[in-house]
Structures are given as C-alpha cells and as structure tokens.
C-alpha cells in the first residue's frame, strides 16, 4: 500500500504482524508437540487439530504434524490443556534460551 497524501495527518494503521514485537518473548513455558502421541501426526490423517482450533494467537498450523511459531507463541498452555492425546508438554523456556546461547 503506497504512502497516502495524508500519511502524517491521520492515525491510519496498516496490517502487519508483531504490533507488540516478538511476543514469543512473553513465554515462560514453551509447548512441545510429541509427534508419537499427536493424533494427526501418528495417523497421518487430517484429524483433531484442537491445538490449532483453540490457540488464541493463531500460531499453530493445521498441518501434519502441527507446527508452532515460537516467534509469537505466548506460552498460554491452552494447546497442552486441550490436546486429547496429551501430546503437548510445556517445557521451561529457559532451557531453550540456554541452548540458543
């Protein structure tokens, strides 16, 4: 979208991700999907996807297996709670910070 003539005159926002930055930085716990237990992953069928359904931030993909965008996942744990197969466990984010360092 091009710069409009009144660009500096109005509060006029354009769509884009990361209004609050990389909200993955909010996490204390990170969700990890165990593909051995995950229903679509182990059956190789389009099925379940509760994690995709209930994710408030839409950072889970409806794919086999589901993937999580850790740039933006806020670590709310809803996916872990709602997974009927118990395939998602929450792990201390500090573990990953150490590894990334």
């Amino acid at each position, binding site marked *: 979208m091009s710069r409009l*003539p*009144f660009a*500096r*005159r*109005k509060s006029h*926002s354009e769509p884009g991700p990361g209004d609050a930055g990389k909200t993955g930085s909010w996490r204390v716990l990170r969700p990890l999907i165990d593909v051995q237990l995950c229903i679509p992953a182990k059956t190789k069928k389009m099925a379940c996807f509760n994690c995709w359904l209930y994710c408030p931030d839409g950072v889970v993909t409806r794919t086999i297996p589901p993937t999580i965008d850790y740039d933006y996942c806020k670590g709310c744990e809803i996916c872990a709670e709602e997974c009927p197969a118990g395939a998602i466990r929450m792990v201390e984010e500090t573990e990953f910070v150490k590894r990334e360092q």
Partner: protein
Amino acid sequence: MHCIESGNVAAAYGVKLARVQVIAAYPITPQTPLTEKLSEFVDAGEMEAEYIPVESEHSALAVCIAATSAGARSFTATSANGLLYMSEQVHWAAGARLPIVMCVVNRGIGAPWTIWNDHQDSISQRDAGWIQLYACDHQQIIDTVIQAFYLAETVSIPVMVCYDGYLLSHTYMPFEVPEAEAVDRFLPPFKPAYALDPRQPANLNTVTLPDVRPDIRGDLAPGYTEIRHNLHFDLRQALGTVAEIDAQFKEAFGRGGSPHVESYCCDDADYIAVALGSLAYQLRDVADMLREEGMRAGVCGIRIYRPFPDEAVVEALARAKGVIVFEKALSYGNEGALCGDIKAALYGCDPRPFVRNYIVGLGGREIRTADLLAALRTATNNRGATCEWLGLKL
C-alpha cells in the same frame, strides 16, 4: 432562484445543493426546521441522501464520522446542549481529519434552560480544531454552507457554520438560491484520500503512542503530538484556502469578498465595534448614527473565528483608538472569548488601540440598538480590563 424564506431553510437549500449523501438528524430548538426541511427534500425525492433519524446528538455526529470515513459527504446540525452532548465527537472529527460540515444554530446553554440565542455553544467548542464560520444574514448562510463543503474537503478539516438562533433561523429574508448546475460546477463530488475499503484495509484512529514508531515498512510514523501539530498547522493554512474559495465563489456567483472579516467604515474609524454573526449588522445602524453625531465609528464583523484571522483583524483594527468587542458569550471567570482573541491579535501593535468588552444578549436577552448606541458613545476611553454587561435588569 430568488426567494423569501427563513434562515433554517436557507441552510437546508445549501445542504441540498451540496448534494450531501448522508444526513444525521436529531431535533433541537431552534435547529429543528432545518432538519425537517431536509427530511421533506429526501422524502419527496428532491435529494438523494440517506436521512438517518438518530437517537441522540452524540450519535448524530457518530453517524457523520463513520459515513465520511466510509467515503460519503455527510452533514448534521444542532444547537446548544445538543452540541455539548456531541462535544467528544466534535474533538474526534477534527483529530480524525474528517471533512464534515455541521450547522450550529446558536443558542444559549443550560443550566438554566434557555432556547434563545447566544454564542456560548459554538464558542465552547472553539478549541476543538474545527473551522468556525459565522453567517450574518440568510444569503451568507446558504453561501457559506455551500463553500463549507468545498473548504472542508480541500483541507480535510470539519467546518462549523454558525448562525443565530431565532434572529436568523426563524426570521424571513430575501436571498438568492444558486442554480444547481452552477453549484455542481463549483463544488466537485467528494473524493476522499482514503475511505474504509476491504480491498485496502486500514485501522483508523487507534491508540497512538506519545512517541514516533516504525510502521510496517520501517519508516517512522508520527506520534500523537505530530498528528495534532499537523491539524493546527493545516488550520492556520486554511485561512488562505478560505480566501481562495471565497474568490472562486465570487467569480461564480457574484457574492463574497470578505472571507475573514467584514469591515464597515473601518478605514478612518477611531472607534470600531467588533462582533460575530448578525450582531455585526445591527451594529452598522449604530455606527451610522454615531457618524451623524460626528464620531468616527466603524464595525468589524468576524466571519471566520477559527482559525483566527489575526492578520485581517490587525489590518482592520490597528489604526483605531479604541476597539469595543460586543459578544454573546464569555469565558467564565475571565472575559469575553472573542475579546481575549482580539486583544492577543493586537498585542504586538505599537501603538495599539484599547479594547473594551461588552457581554450582551445572553439567553436571548434583547439587544436594543439604543443600548448599543449608548455603550459605544461612551466607550471612548479605556475604562479597565474586565468585561462589562449590557442589558442587565436586576
């Protein structure tokens, strides 16, 4: 077309000729006949507009804000407490840079309740960021309404067209209604820089931070203070635009020439009365009488109050010995609002005229020419800083 009609009907003709697309209507005395006339035009098919009977004045301006944001030319009108009820929206429309036109049929504000004329309603909104134009007679009402849309859409700032309740709204005067084809040539259709559009989504007027911040491309976007600064800056520039549009209007319709102030016998005047609205015309009779008595009196009617036409005011008043501001409103606890602005404009003049202030006609108290004459006759010296009152009885 020549006609004899009320000021409210003059305004209605202006709105009709401007081909307004969305009208928000809520009744309040003395504006009501204006909205009624518009509903007649729409019901009879003479006007192709959406006529929205809203449930409050706050909603009236909400409808206009949304309609203009979505690309339609919109209009509403109100008075007094109705204007105050929508005050939040008045500020909003200016900050959102929406070219809405609103007629304010001037009436005093409660408490206590009054339905009669004074200027406190529009004066109370002078700091909101709207352009404020005052009409002195019915011809000026219709001409100003038409020009107001052109002005608003050129500078993207909402415009208030103010005229006196009852004194103008309900009295009958002859005036010229321009031909529709001529107005169509003068006033192009509304083409906003941006209108809400699913094909070009944008989120308008959301929370804006104190500081600048990068946008989705990484360019710095303004903070709240820049957006507000730009409103003020553009308002000041609008003084020039008002004059340009007035000149264009004069060329097309043969009327105009005093877009900022309307001066009467000011060139050689020693004492100049200043006023807003129809009072300026009443004061001309007073000036004539004083001239017969040998006093060099003049009248300066302010046509545009915001942005304040300080250059035109200085040009008209600086050479006088005394300036006497008669006004139907005040900044309670201090002095007349217009008086304060006049003094500020004249502050840098050396020498500068003294400024006297009379508060008149609040809540429709009759303004007798004899009283104006008596006041102006004796106002040949600088009696003091605070305002005086004309017409108090008890």
